C-alpha cells in the first residue's frame, strides 16, 4: 500500500510538527508575538489558533525576556513549551535567560531539573531587511554547554527535527531561515522524527566536502552542480544539528575527499565555520590536501541597499569559488 505523500513547504512542515505534537500532547503549547490571528510575522502558525485556541496559541506582549523565562518555568514543571522569537536578532533580548538559565538549570541543580523548551526563531538576509532584522546568530548558542542548536534546510528536516526538539528534554534553539519557507518537498503524512545530532549527506561526492547550513545548503548544491561541469565531484554535508554536532559524519567525508569548504550565511569571523574548520584540521589533519575554506558574510552589519546586501552575503558563486580554490590548490 503506497503511503500518501503531500507537498509540504518548509513553513507548513514546521507548522505540521507543532500541530501534530499539540494534538497528541496537551503539554505542548506555543507562545510568541502575533502568532494567533495573524499567524506570526512569517505565517508559520497560521490556522493554529482556530485549532488549538488562545490558551495554547498564546499571543504575547513584546517581552522576549519574560516569554523565554516563562517558557523555562513551564518546561521545568514538565510542559513542552515552544516560544517563537519573531526574529533571531531579538534572541539578544533573551540571551540572559537562555544562557544563564535554560542552559544551566539542569547542571546547577545536580540533575534535578529538565528544561524541555524549544525556542523557535527565524531570520536571514536577502530581502533588504537591514541590520537589525537579518543577522545570523546561531553561532553564539553552539558554544553554550547545555543548549542544543538545530538549523534545518529542508521541509523534511524541519518537520522531523522540530518534532525531536519538542520532545528533547533540553532547551533547543531552533533556527528557521526566511528564504527557505517556500521551499517544497513531498513528505508522507506520517511524521518521521529525525534524531538530533545526525548530519545528512545532501549530495555524495569524491573530491571536496562542503559543510553547509541553512540557506547555504541549496546554494552549495547549486554550486556542486556547477562544479560537476568542471569535473569536480562535490559532497555536501548538512549537519542540521549544530550542537550536538555530528563530528564523525563531517570527518568521514573529509577523510574521503581530503578537502573541505564550510559555508553559512553568518559572518565568517567567529561563525560556526570557525568551529568546523578548527575541528577538521584538528581531527583530519593528515588527510587534508588544502586548507579548510570558510564562506560567510562579510564583516559588516547587514546593509540595507540591495547592491550592498548582495555583495555582503554568500550565495552559490562564493561557494563555487571556494570549491575551485580548494580543489585547485596543491
Amino acid at each position, binding site marked *: 500500500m503506497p503511503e500518501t505523500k503531500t507537498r509540504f513547504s518548509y513553513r507548513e512542515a514546521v507548522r505540521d510538527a507543532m500541530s501534530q505534537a499539540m494534538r497528541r500532547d496537551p503539554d505542548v503549547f506555543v507562545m510568541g508575538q502575533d502568532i494567533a*490571528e*495573524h499567524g506570526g510575522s512569517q505565517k508559520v502558525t497560521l490556522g493554529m489558533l482556530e485549532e488549538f485556541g488562545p490558551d495554547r496559541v498564546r499571543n504575547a506582549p513584546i517581552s522576549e525576556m519574560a516569554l523565554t523565562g516563562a517558557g523555562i518555568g513551564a518546561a521545568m514543571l514538565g510542559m513542552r513549551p515552544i516560544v517563537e522569537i519573531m526574529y533571531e536578532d531579538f534572541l539578544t533580548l533573551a540571551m540572559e535567560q537562555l544562557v544563564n538559565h535554560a542552559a544551566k538549570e539542569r547542571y546547577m541543580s545536580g540533575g534535578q531539573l529538565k528544561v524541555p523548551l524549544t525556542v523557535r526563531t527565524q531570520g536571514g538576509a536577502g530581502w533588504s531587511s537591514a541590520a*537589525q532584522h537579518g543577522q545570523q546568530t546561531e553561532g553564539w548558542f553552539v558554544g553554550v554547554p547545555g543548549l542544543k542548536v538545530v538549523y534545518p534546510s529542508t521541509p523534511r528536516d524541519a518537520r522531523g527535527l522540530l518534532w525531536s526538539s519538542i520532545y528533547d528534554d533540553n532547551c533547543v534553539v531552533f533556527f528557521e531561515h526566511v528564504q527557505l519557507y517556500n521551499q517544497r518537498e513531498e513528505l508522507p503524512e506520517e511524521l518521521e522524527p529525525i534524531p538530533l545530532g545526525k548530519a545528512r549527506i545532501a549530495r555524495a561526492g569524491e573530491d571536496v566536502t562542503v559543510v553547509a547550513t541553512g540557506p547555504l545548503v541549496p546554494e552549495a548544491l547549486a554550486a556542486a552542480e556547477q562544479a560537476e561541469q568542471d569535473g569536480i565531484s562535490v559532497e555536501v554535508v548538512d549537519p542540521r544539528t549544530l550542537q550536538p554536532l555530528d563530528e564523525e559524519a563531517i570527518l568521514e567525508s573529509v577523510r574521503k575527499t581530503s578537502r573541505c569548504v564550510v559555508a553559512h550565511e553568518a559572518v565568517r569571523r567567529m561563525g560556526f565555520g570557525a568551529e568546523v574548520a578548527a575541528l577538521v584540521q584538528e581531527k583530519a589533519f593528515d588527510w587534508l590536501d588544502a586548507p579548510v575554506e570558510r564562506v560567510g558574510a*562579510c564583516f559588516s552589519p547587514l546593509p540595507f541597499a540591495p*547592491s*550592498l546586501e548582495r*555583495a555582503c552575503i554568500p550565495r552559490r558563486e562564493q561557494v563555487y569559488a571556494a570549491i575551485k580554490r580548494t580543489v585547485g590548490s596543491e
Partner: protein
Amino acid sequence: MTELDFMTSPQSGELGRFLQQMLLIRYFEQQVEERYRDAEIPGFVHVAIGQEAVAVGACAALAPGDVITSTHRSHAHTLAKGTPARAVMAELYGKVEGCSRGRGGSMHLYDVERGNLGSSAVVGGALGIATGAALAFSLRSEPRVALAFFGDGATASGLFHESMNLAQLWRLPVVFLCENNRWAESTPLAQHSPIADLTQRAQAFGMTALEVDGQDVEAVYRATAEALAHARSAAGPVFVLAETYRLAPHNVGDQQEYRDKEEYELTRSTQDPIAKLRERLALSDERFAELEREAEAAVADAVEFARHGTDPDPQTLLEDVYA
C-alpha cells in the same frame, strides 16, 4: 507643571504649517505604499498614516539642539524633524543620497545634524539611547532635551521600564512620548497590557505624566512643549501619552485579518488628524486642494529624486563599520 504661557502656544501661522507638514507626510506615506507594492522599495515598511499629528506637533515643540529617537515607524518623525522628503525617500530606495546613505533603509532613518539620532527597529531599543543623550545634556549642563518616540507595544519591554526608572532617578531631561495607537502589530492593547490607561506606567517611577489627544496637532504641540519645559528646567523626565490611531495596516502587505473591518473603516473616517485640522482651520476647498497639490508635488519630486539616486558601490561595503 506651570500653566501654558503664550510662548508655548503655536502662533496663528503655525497651524497652517502643521497642516502642510501633515499633508506632506500623508502623501509621502501613500506613495511609499504604492512604490512598495510596485516593488520599487525593498525590505519592509511601516507607514504612519493616522499618526501625523503626533510627529508634527511634537517635533514643532522641540528647540534647536533637542534630539529625538524614533522607531520602526519612522518616516513621519524624520520628516517632521526636518529631513527633506528627497533624502528620506532616497533612503527607502537604498540610495547613496538617502539620509542614511542607503545603509539604513526605512527602519533606520538618521539625520544627526538635524537632531535625529535615528530609529531602532528593535521595539523599545532606542529608549536607553535617548536616556543617555539626556544624561550627556545633564552632565554638560546644556539646556537640551531628548525626546523618544515609541509605541504602546514598547511599554511591555524591559528596556522601557529600566530607562524610565533611570531617567527619573537621575532627573534627566528626556521626554518619553508614547504613541498609543492601541495596536502592536496584530496585538490589540488588551492583549499586551493589563491596564487600559498607560499613564499608570509612569506612576511606577513617580514620573510626571501627561495625556493628550494625538489626533489634535495643537494639543500635541502644547503638551510636548509643556513636557519639554519641565524636562529642560531640570525637574525631571515626562511621560507623554498621545492617544492616536493607526489608520493603515501594521506594515505594507499586512492583511489585518485580526482587525474588525467596520471598526477600521469607522476609525479611518472619524479619526483623521488632517480632516480635523482642516475643519479647525476652516480652509476653503480651493486652499486645501492647493495644499494637497503642493504636498503631492513634493512627494512626486522625492520619488523622482530617489529613482534617479545612486546605488551604493559594493566597493564601499566595509566603509563605516568602524570609525
